[in-house]
Structure formats: C-alpha cells, structure tokens
C-alpha cells in the first residue's frame, strides 16, 4: 500500500510532531516547519506515515493514494 504525503502549508503551524514520528521522510527547516519528501511512501514506512498524519494537531498532513499522483 503506497501513498504520497501531502502537506497543507496553510493549516501547518510548525508543531513538528510529524518530523519526530517520521524522520525518514520529514525534516524541519530553519524555522521549525516540515519539509516533506515527495517520494512515494511504501512498505514498512507506510505505518510511520499514517502515524504522522494522525498525530498532526492541525490535520495538515495527508497521505494520498499513489494512484492519485500521475506522473506526466
């Protein structure tokens, strides 16, 4: 089950839980806001991704099905 992490930059307040829970794909910039790796999340990493999504206090993170992301 693979997906792509999408961040809503307006909802995001820079709490930073996502980077703690999923450091493999999310790191924080110099001001504490997440930089999300756009590569698809597959296999074992998916559970970490889902936890980061569910723990975000602002519901700013979403995991979209990979099928939604069409490469041109």
């Amino acid at each position: 089950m693979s997906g792509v992490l999408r961040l809503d930059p307006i909802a995001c307040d820079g709490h930073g839980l996502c980077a703690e829970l999923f450091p493999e794909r999310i790191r924080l910039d110099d001001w504490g806001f997440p930089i999300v790796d756009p590569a698809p999340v597959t296999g074992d990493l998916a559970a970490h991704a889902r936890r980061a999504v569910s723990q975000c206090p602002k519901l700013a993170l979403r995991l979209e099905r990979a099928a939604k992301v069409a490469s041109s």
Partner: protein
Amino acid sequence: MSALAAQPMLAPPGRLPRLLAGIQHEDRAISLDAHLRRFGPPHAPHDLIAVVDAAGLRGRGGAGFPTARKLAAVAAQRGRPIVVVNAAEGEPASGKDKVLLRFNPHLVLDGAVLAAAAVGAKQAVVAVSVEAVTERARLESAMAERRSRRLDRVGVKLVTVPEGFVTGEESALLRAVAGKPARPTTKPPYPFQQGLDGKPTLVQNAETLAHLALVARFGPQWFREAGTDEAPGTALVTLSGAVARRGVHEIELGTTLEELLQQAGGVTEAISAVLVGGYFGSWVRAEEAASLRLVPGNLGAGAVIAFPASACAVAEAARVARYLAGESAGQCGPCVHGLDAIAGGLEGLAGGAHDVDAARLERWAGMVAGRGACRHPDGAARFVASMLRAFPDELRQHARHGRCSRQPARILPLPKERRG
C-alpha cells in the same frame, strides 16, 4: 456579440503597435466608436479556443500559461463558469494593465466577453484596485457605452479589490472579489475547477484578453507575424530606472533587452544590471543583458528596471525583500519566517553587519521556494537568489567593509507605506 460582418473589414495592425495602436497623446480613453473604427467590429470565430491555440497566446499576468489550455480547462468543467479579468496589477513596478484600462478599455472588455462566450459564461467581472481611481472611471464609462448599444450578450461587472502584491494571485483575487481578505487558498481545487461562488472560473490578465480580442478579429497567422515561432506576438513592458523614456512600451516577443532599451531612448547613465520580470524576476548583469531575449518565461508581468551602476544594489534588494516579506499573506510558515529572515539578512548586509553570510541567504532562498500555498515565496526567492549571483563583488565589499563604493538610492519603486 452584435451580428455585424463575418469578417473584420479593416486592415489589421502591423507588427507594432498593436495593443497601443490608436492611443492619442491626450489622457483619455478611446471611445467605443473610435475603437470600432480602428479595430473593426468585435468578431467571434466559431471556435475561438482553437484559434487562440493556433496563435500560441500565453498569459501576460506573470505565469505565461498557454491561454487556449486555460480556456479549454474551464470549458470542460461541469456547471456554468464565470470570467474574472485580473486588472489588479499589485506589482509596484508594473503599469501596463492600468495603461490598457486608462486608454483602451474596450479592447480588454472585448476580450473578456469573447472569452466568456468561448467557455460558456454569461458573466464577466473586472477586478481593479480600489486605488486605481481614473482607470475605474474609464472602465465604467466604457461599460456604460457598451450597455447603451447593447453590444455584449455577457453581463460585465466591475469590482474593486484592495491594493497589495498578493491580491493579484488568482485564488486571492477571487476571495477579494467575494469581499473576503485577499489571501490565497490551498490548491487543489484550482480556480478553473472551483472559483468564484464555487463555479469554474476563468481568471485572465487584462493584457492577455486584449491580445485575445485582436486574435479573434485578425487570426492566428496575423498574431504570429510579430514575435518568434516559440514566443509569438507582442507584449507590454513597464520600463523604469536609468532609461530615457520610462513607462509602458509594446515590444515584439523575442526582442533583446538591448533593443528594448534602445527603443526607449537608451540608458541615461551606466547600468550595472537589469531586473527582468519585476520583483519576482531575475537580475541580469549588464554584460549579459544586451543579448537576452524577452519572452514569457522571463518577462513575468513585464516590469523591467535598468539599474544604474552608481546605486547600491544590496540596499535596494534589502528594501524590496523587506517589502515582499511584508506582503506575505501570513498563512504559511516558510514564507512568513523565511522571507523575514532573508530580508533581515540583506538589511544587515546593506547596513554594515559583518556576520551575515550570503551563502546562508542563498540557502534560505532555496528553502522557501515551493513550500507555500502560492508562489509568493518562490518569486521572492528568485529575486534574492539572482541578486546574490549578479552582485558578488558588491556583496563581498559589504561583508568585509560594511558598505560598497555605490550610493544607496531609491531606484526600485515601492508603494507608499500602507500599514502603520
């Protein structure tokens, strides 16, 4: 659209001027009669989208998106669409849309009505800055002329929007038109899918629609007689800085910067660089500037500033960077914090701080791009990063000695302070 002759009866404009053709030297708008005498009756080809596609017209609001593709995307949506003419022109260094509204509003209105018919809209809204008082009055007169002749089958409304750099961003503009704060929204959905009142919305820059009005009358081959194969047609450029004839000029796309400066009477003093594309654009050193061809990809909204060598670019870049940071809609962390940090760094460099590192500013510029709900941080990052690349000697002087051999001077136009 009135049922006049199927073919325009008049000779089309040559390569130049086109949008600026027929503009008198007095400060008044072309009347409807004069407009129809100069350009012929408004002509609606049965497949305008295909005609616009063949012409290769691209948007003139800054993004340079192919206009036919945008029209087709809106036309393909379910539900009745609406057209919004973006004449907000929040870029301080740009005056081209105001010139069109001031002198040639009928061309913009023709384009709006034609585009509406092509996408199946019955309403067009023209969004103008609340501060553009003369332009609003000229537009209202032109709209009244058309109404009294029952010229258009599309209802046209004028809406004022607040002044501001971000107000012209499509989704922010639609919010402003709806009476809400002019802040961008997250996409998707895009305006073409869900815009004003949830309807599919065609947002088009005023100048783009003016070109469209001429393409509809004179055809794609005519349009392509100016410009190049890859960059067909003409464009309006707002020229300022150290040049003899400042103001709005019309050029063929593909014109070099050197040709543009010559067309405007030449530079008035030695220049160090040219800012191409306004405050979301790029600084180009004078040595490379001469041969640079102006195309939608680098023109942005068409503001070009000839920067005099006597002026301190670091101080000016700091002033504009601070303005851009202040114009952030304030919704996204990387934009709010990043642009503030970059402006602070440039102000430090300009003012003599020794601990500011140009490499860190460049890293920050790379860090904010692509991370907001709109392209504000991207544009600001491009402006700053290109400045850092274009003025390495001046930056070194500032870092080492706290100043350079140039003078601080107000070259880049900014609006008067709006906020307390």
